[in-house]
């Protein structure tokens, strides 16, 4: 990754204008052609420096719900339970963390009431209690990682 790639990563975290040729202004700022910007962007995605480029959707504004859930999973059943939890398409992210509550996952559903149903199903499938921690206030989403 060279300095132009780094500048692309920094600039494109900010958000593009919604217009017919949204890459033009960024290309001018970076002093490269749109074609070069696009091919470098494709490489950054292929190399997994970026996980995604596109609209960032807000589940709640689509009528859906997101909830963070935690479970205390016995060590000897950890991978089995991870498989059971991950099998639910509503589970968007799942992380192993160092704590008594050692599995943390995000449930994304299109309707708020579906989240509770999925949580019950996960409890039934795994035999572990799910601690539901839906957000009550959001203070900020997004960060600017300087490269």
């Amino acid at each position: 990754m060279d300095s132009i790639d780094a500048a692309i990563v920094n600039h494109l975290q900010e958000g593009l204008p919604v217009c017919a040729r949204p890459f033009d202004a960024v290309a001018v700022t970076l002093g490269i052609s749109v074609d070069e910007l696009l091919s470098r962007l494709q490489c950054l995605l292929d190399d997994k420096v970026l996980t995604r480029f596109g609209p960032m959707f807000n589940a709640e504004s689509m009528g859906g719900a997101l909830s963070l859930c935690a479970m205390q999973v016995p060590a000897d059943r950890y991978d089995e339970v991870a498989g059971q939890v991950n099998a639910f398409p509503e589970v968007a992210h799942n992380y192993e963390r160092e704590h008594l509550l050692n599995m943390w996952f995000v449930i994304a559903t299109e309707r708020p009431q579906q989240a509770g149903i999925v949580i019950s199903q996960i409890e039934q499938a795994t035999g572990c209690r799910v601690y539901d921690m839906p957000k009550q206030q959001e203070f900020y989403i997004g960060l600017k990682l300087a490269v």
Partner: protein
Amino acid sequence: MTGKPQATSKAQQDGQSLDAIDRQIIVATQAGLPLVAEPFAALAEQLGLESEEVLQRVADMQARGVIRRIAAVPNHYALGYTVNGMSVWNVSDEHITELGRLIGGLDYVSHCYQRPRHLPLWPYNLFAMVHGRSSDDVVAKLGTIADLLGEHCRGHEVLYSKRILKKTGLRIKA
């Protein structure tokens, strides 16, 4: 601890106001935007729509907050931010809104939320995801947060991630 009932009902209205074409656009761009000079025209062609209509609908969805922004999502790990700590803080409910805004405004905090406690196991109500290039880096940043919270903080922990078990984008069905 109000839980913002007004925001919820507005969000539900917005959700109901997405029509079939909006949903087609969402489904077509969930994996990403076409990487061409005129991505909305490419999207329009793919969906059999006029590009003006696609642009207008995307702009409307952004104005309504359905789309936060059109941007790149970095892979923290690939950028050298290899340590992410979910810091959790037990702060007084009376001050949580001002404290949350303060901590959420820090540039190394990616997500900052108030969430419910589950006593006695879980006394923490303020969550802030902190990203750093090393454990020392994250520890230093946590020290800054602790100083900012000061006497309003009754305890905290940081939960480091050991393993990503699953990571997919938001997926909705057509």
